């Protein structure tokens, strides 16, 4: 029985080290990230990117976190050249760099951004939405009429690498998320060439109920263990904890 079991484990095991994961993230990489205000952004991978000294990143994700929280740490450290996002208000460093010309930002309504990332992951060319019609959002975009109604064509987004924070992962890369830490993670997980997951817990194959899995392992290339959140949340800082 040793033969077949080894074959199966080899075919299904994606558990790797931080170093192996970081090999895919280099200067100029197009990088998608999970998280919403930092919640659900992968702390260990972000720390690793900082330590490795990666720069000129092209980021795609919901927001820029807070100055010391989530993906905001990369922005604050000046490692980001370009950004597609919906919101940078909670990280003043992003706005400052943008006005100084150090950071190029493309804004997108949040729901449209989520759908564009999903469309990328789903192999679609884009979606039709009327959100943003009549505002600057429509500038430079194709429009089509469907059943007498006008829609913007919002094109799909993909990335070279996606970084994910999961609650549990098995060796095949099946994932669950931690409560509202889900947010953009399952979308981003589908939309990159290489998807790297940092998991709070790596469980044996078969330990996850097939019904509780939010991201099927097919989307995942690497799973590394998380060292846990290494920042203070904005609300903790305000309360002086």
């Amino acid at each position, binding site marked *: 029985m040793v033969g077949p079991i080894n074959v199966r484990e080899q075919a299904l095991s994606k558990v790797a080290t931080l170093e192996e994961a970081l090999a895919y993230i280099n200067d100029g990489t197009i990088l998608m990230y999970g998280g919403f205000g930092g919640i659900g952004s992968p702390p260990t991978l972000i720390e690793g990117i900082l330590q490795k000294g990666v720069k000129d990143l092209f980021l795609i994700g919901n927001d820029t976190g807070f100055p010391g929280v989530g993906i905001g740490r990369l922005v604050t450290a000046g490692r980001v050249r370009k950004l597609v996002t919906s919101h940078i208000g*909670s990280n003043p460093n992003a706005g400052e760099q943008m006005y100084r010309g150090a950071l190029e930002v493309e804004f997108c309504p949040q729901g449209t951004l989520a759908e564009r990332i999903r469309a990328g992951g789903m192999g679609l060319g884009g979606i039709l939405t009327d959100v943003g019609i009549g505002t600057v959002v429509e500038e430079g975009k194709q429009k089509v009429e469907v059943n007498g109604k006008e829609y913007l064509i919002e094109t799909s987004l993909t990335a070279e690498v996606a970084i994910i924070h999961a609650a549990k992962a098995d060796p095949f890369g099946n994932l669950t998320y931690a409560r509202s830490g889900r947010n953009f993670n399952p979308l981003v997980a589908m939309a990159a060439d290489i998807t790297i997951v940092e998991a709070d817990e790596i469980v044996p194959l078969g330990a996850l109920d097939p019904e509780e899995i939010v991201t099927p392992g097919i989307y995942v290339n690497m799973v590394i263990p998380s060292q846990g959140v290494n920042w203070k949340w904005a609300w903790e800082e305000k309360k002086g904890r």
Partner: protein
Amino acid sequence: MGLGREKRPLIARRAAHELQNGMIVNLGIGIPTMVADFVPEGIHVVFQAENGILGYGTSPREGEEDPFVCNAGGLPVTLMDEASYFDSTVAFGMIRRGFLDLTVLGALQVSEKGDLANWIVPGKRVPGMGGAIDLAQKAKRVVVVTEHVSRDGLPKILRECTYPLTVRESVDLIITDMAVIEVTPSGLVLKEVAREYEVADVVRATEAPLFIPEDVGQF
């Protein structure tokens, strides 16, 4: 003139009176977030957040926060029995499809036609639109909560917004530290004035013309 810190709960409390039993409600970042802590007794509201929660409640007690149970502003919340988690496409699917009975949003500027500008101060500050465009365009009822004038003392309720718009002709009600103003097809109607102010104060602090009915209330 600036908005006293203590006035923010006042605005949120007044906005909470727009809640009705069974409503699905989304709260923006800032003052809107505080509305969840002022739901009037005897009604049940289902709060929704863009990060992917339906059915959250008040803020947790200090020490009971779970960083992974947060609203769209990243602040911890509690959960109701009907709560569910989902990804952000589903959160915005609910919004885009028109399931939100009410949204409470902040504003940089509002026009007398109900235009809303709240995502960029050109040349100065760019928070970004977040989910405000989706919400302002799609919620059945849009309530704006804001300080009545800017930090520089300039009116925020204008004939025309000068900042790029978040949405056109979509705001239904404006609640500030000075007044409650309804947006109607024929212009802005002053509904209520805050205890500390006179009608004349509100008119002075508002660039857009205000229709003043005989029965202006107080809050």
